[in-house]
């Protein structure tokens, strides 16, 4: 039994990977105001109904993120994790023009600050609404002096996973956490 437990532990998805994936999904929800609905309709288009049959399942899986208020450790399976990554990569592909606009605004903040500031404000709003604000990690995310770098990296990650093998790139990146 001990050996089986040790072997199975090696294949468990790390908390950091789930945290990062949920932050990416939250960024997509920030850009697309009807994000939850879009994610669900996209999962049907991608034939992920077996793994993600409804919106509640997506929500439950995202609750594996320990930073969430409604954190619930359900031990997310690899197939479920992969399905969420596929959703993220596909959604990023659809939203690339907006993602790029936000990145460009951050590159040239003096001349064109509106898209970046709007994204940042809404992202912070969603984080404070859904995440446990007493946690140190969340506090750091909400700290305006150091959260820019994290937010830029999240948007850049989305921008770099829109190719045909974007899902594989994103999976490789997330599993490195």
């Amino acid at each position, binding site marked *: 039994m001990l050996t089986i437990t040790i072997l199975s532990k090696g294949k468990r998805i790390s908390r950091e990977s789930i945290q990062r994936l949920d932050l990416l999904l939250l960024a997509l929800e920030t850009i697309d105001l009807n994000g939850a609905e879009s994610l669900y309709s996209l999962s049907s288009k991608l034939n992920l109904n077996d793994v993600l049959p409804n919106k509640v399942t997506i929500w439950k899986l995202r609750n594996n993120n320990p930073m969430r208020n409604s954190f619930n450790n359900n031990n997310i399976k690899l197939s479920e994790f992969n399905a969420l990554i596929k959703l993220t990569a596909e959604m990023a592909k659809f939203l690339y023009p907006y993602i790029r606009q936000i990145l460009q605004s951050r590159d040239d903040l003096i001349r064109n600050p509106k898209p970046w500031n709007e994204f940042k404000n809404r992202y912070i709003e969603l984080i404070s609404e859904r995440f446990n604000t007493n946690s140190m990690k969340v506090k750091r995310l909400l700290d305006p002096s150091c959260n820019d770098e994290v937010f830029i990296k999240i948007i850049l990650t989305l*921008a770099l996973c829109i190719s045909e093998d974007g899902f594989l790139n994103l999976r490789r990146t997330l599993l*490195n956490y």
Partner: protein
Amino acid sequence: MLQNKILFNQSSVSLEINGLPDYSNNENQDNISIISQWKLMIIDKPVIEGNLDHLKSIMKAFYSYSISILNDENPSYNSKLIDIKPENCYTHILLLKSSKPKVKPLNIRIGNSIFADIINCFDQLGFSDKVKNIYSKEFKSLTNKKHSFLKDKKNISEFLLPPVVSLFSIFLFSTAFIYIYDNNENRSLLNYQNKLVSIQSINKLL
């Protein structure tokens, strides 16, 4: 002979590939298998151009750099042809060194949006059916082998590990039982010897 020209566009970046199809392989006339020249055009920046080797070096540099950014590693890439380093979290500095003598290196600063556009242009090129001999996969597989065990394909060690572990555990348990059995046997022998000694001593006394 008239060369083919294929363009890959992504917002502010265009990648132009010039070359010829491989007629010896009966390839489609619109395809490009022999790349003679390429141009990377970025709005408001000088045009970057070169031959196939230069293109491969630049693609390798951009992919390596992007992977190290995504993996939260120190993103810096140095080679004979190109250096890329971050100025801050939203600006990157490219230093392009010409292979021709007496040509000064070219310094270009690009933001994250342009960086993402360039990577996406290279991805389009890598997945294009019309341009052969360039595969983005060969540049992406350079790093990131930390979680190879989670790949869909089962490797041989993954296949062999469970039976080996089970055999080892059976061996471990069986040796433990043999040890206990041996101990019991030794004890019974000792008891028998003690009994004999006691009978001998009684005989002596009598």
